[in-house]
């Protein structure tokens, strides 16, 4: 078990290091950052001056070491436009994104999983077909389109505006969580179907365990195992989706900040946000791996 934990933590650390390196390299490959900062007609001396000021004249490996060293000390850089530390801007936006993301995830979990389980239990009925139809719709619908249609309908029919930072979080969250909801429903259905037909379910029935108890105490813990993986992985889709959703709903979160930073070539800000997203994903996977230890005794034994 210690070996398991150790290897997962090491793997996570390694993934982060690779990500940091790739982000560093790609941003430098995407063109001379100093040239991007100055007006197009600026003379070469001005560009060189900027480059010197930002340390871009040093050899690549020195820049890399300085960059990684800075990261380790919590020195993430400053926005080129505002001069504010990038993490500060980020932290200011974070509550909005957390509010949106957690609501979206909660909607996906608390609607997707129960309807998927219900579809499995009522397999082959109209309810099952409806849930499956809905999940295909939810999964296939691009969230910018769904969000725009929702805003349009609300505006035309109810004269209500669903966007902006004072709007109810439920609307952007529904848009953001829709795809995850569909995939959770579908996945729960197949996972529950697999477990309710497992031999131990029949054995529990033969031992006189009532239906509800079989479902809750025997099927649910087993069906949950693959779902934990799915939920962990879908965090990535949520982060990606939040970029679009926040834009559509004018929601002042991290996604919107990222779009704005890319548009204005605010390199330090973009760099930091990409790392944060990567870090979120790595941590989510690490947490999923650790959760396995709790919910699956077969892994604990290894």
């Amino acid at each position, binding site marked *: 078990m210690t*070996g398991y934990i150790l290897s997962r933590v*090491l793997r996570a650390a390694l993934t982060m290091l690779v990500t940091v390196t790739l982000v560093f390299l790609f941003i430098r490959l995407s063109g001379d950052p100093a040239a991007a900062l100055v007006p197009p007609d600026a003379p070469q001396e001005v560009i060189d001056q900027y480059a010197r000021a930002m340390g871009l004249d040093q050899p690549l490996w020195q820049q890399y070491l300085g960059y990684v060293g800075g990261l380790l000390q919590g020195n993430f850089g400053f926005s080129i436009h505002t001069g504010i530390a990038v993490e500060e801007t980020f932290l200011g936006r974070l509550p909005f994104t957390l509010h949106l993301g957690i609501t979206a995830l909660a909607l996906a979990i608390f609607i997707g999983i129960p309807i998927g389980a219900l579809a499995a239990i009522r397999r082959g009925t109209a309810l099952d077909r409806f849930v499956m139809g809905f999940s295909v719709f939810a999964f296939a619908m691009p969230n910018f389109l769904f969000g725009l249609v929702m805003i349009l309908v609300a505006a035309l029919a109810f004269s209500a505006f669903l966007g902006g930072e004072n709007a109810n979080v439920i609307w952007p969250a529904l848009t953001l969580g829709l795809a995850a909801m569909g995939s959770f429903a579908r996945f729960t259905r197949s996972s529950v179907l697999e477990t309710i037909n497992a*031999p*131990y379910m029949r054995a529990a029935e033969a031992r*006189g*365990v009532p239906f509800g108890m079989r479902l809750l105490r025997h099927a649910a813990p087993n069906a949950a*195992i693959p779902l934990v993986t799915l939920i962990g992985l879908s965090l990535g889709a949520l982060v990606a989706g939040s970029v679009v959703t926040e834009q559509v709903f004018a929601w002042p979160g991290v996604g919107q900040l990222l779009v704005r930073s890319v548009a204005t070539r605010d390199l330090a800000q973009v760099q930091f946000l990409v790392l944060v997203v990567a870090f979120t994903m790595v941590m989510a996977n690490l947490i999923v791996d650790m959760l396995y230890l709790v919910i699956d005794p077969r892994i604990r034994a290894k």
Partner: protein
Amino acid sequence: MSEPHRGESAPRAPLLSIEDLTVALPGDGDRPEAVSGISFAIAPGETLCLVGESGSGKSVVGQAVLGMLPHALPVTGGCIRFAGAEMPPQRDRAFGTIRSAQIAMIFQDAGASLNPVRTIGGQLAEILAVHGIPKPDRRPRVLEVLRDVALPEPERIARSYPHQLSGGQAQRAVIAAALLLKPDLLIADEPTTALDVTTQAEILALIARLKVEHELAVLFVTHDFGVVAEIADRVAVMQEGVLVEAGMAEDVLQAPQHPYTRKLIAAVNPTPRTLGQHGDTPILDATDVNLIYRSGFLGNRKALHAVKDVSLEIAAGRTVAVVGESGSGKSSLARCLLRLEEIDSGSIRFKGQEISTLTGAPLRQLRQSIQVVLQDPFSALNPRQTILSAIAEGPIIHGMAPADARQKAAELIELVGLSAQSGGRYPQEFSGGQRQRICIARALALEPEVLIADEAVSALDVSIQAQILDLFADLQRRFGFAILFITHDLAVARAIADDILVMKSAEIVEHGPADRVFAAPAHPYTQALLAAAPGLDLFRRGSAA
């Protein structure tokens, strides 16, 4: 058909009686009824074996008694009475108080019938909780039954998860669960089929002991007359939903009336084969082969010695059976000989030429000469490939013109006993036995000189097993290839082998001609295996006759 009630000389009133039970089989089943008008009774403390092959309806009867038939299988006639009272309709809530408390049931795969994420103790205590036993009484009772089924360290077993138990321990735990509420009847549905022979013998002995100690009546569902000979008081034989023979165990075993019963009994005690041709020079031989599996990462590296100093030789036209229990290394040995594993040391020679170091083109060429037939004919065939194309694929890869390869495949399809027109069909349109014929045809398409059969009949019903074994022997006579037949089943080894190798814990412990090994086993393990084989008496009778 003989009189079903023939053996009913039981002095006491029956505990369970089934009268004219009929269960419909709607939809596109191969017959209109899963079970057609069967009747039998079990007296208190009596063991009745319900015998039949897959699809005979024997498990349907077991499920019907516990009210567990799915909606797809409605009871259309007859009645089931338990302790004098008629049973509620299928799936009725009233069964909640009958299941476990009065009638308990155990299944074939004990490991799978335990919830993998909950402890044994928790699952057993749950049964007591469901039936209203107060909390303080649960744990002592759980430990008591675990001790009763002779599990070592009951406290530790109670804390364990199913994957931490061996197959035999899991089956004991499941039997313990069945005993918790002191039922009067135990329904055991093929409870030992998935177990090794020595474990099977222990479990059968356990059930026999519990039956006496707890005055338990047992409805034992099985396909194996060897098991019947070990534990049955009475026997009922089912074929395609109909009870074809019933009676006292000795009577049925000694003087079976129905041809189907005779066929099933014959499968336990096959006629030893007439020896294959005597080839003197080995076509495939191995010396001191070692295989070690290494796994793990960082702190938990593991090494498993799967094959240890194994030497063997097979001559053309001969059949060598490798016999061993699960985990003995026999399949790993097959993988070494097939060059699917890189051996750690030793040598393997084909026609005298070293093959354990071959790579690239020479290795690919060698693969033609050594072919394999695997255990599970369902997963061994690609469901999206017609059988003709599956059989022709090998020769085409090895350079035969596609038209010729298809011609040859068509001939092979007929040769293994399928109709010539079936080439364009897909594997799922065939039965298990037919699929194994297809797999054999596929192996033979490359005209191998050695055929390795890894548990090739273990997934098949006994009567189909006999047909496939005949097919192997017949094709061998015709083409003269050598067969290495890997099996856990002594009856199968006896039916097919000229020579026997017995494997235990990665090593060969005994090696010799089949008749000598069966008549006078030298190694204690071989002796134990033979002694554990169910229906040994049947065996003896057969050899004497």
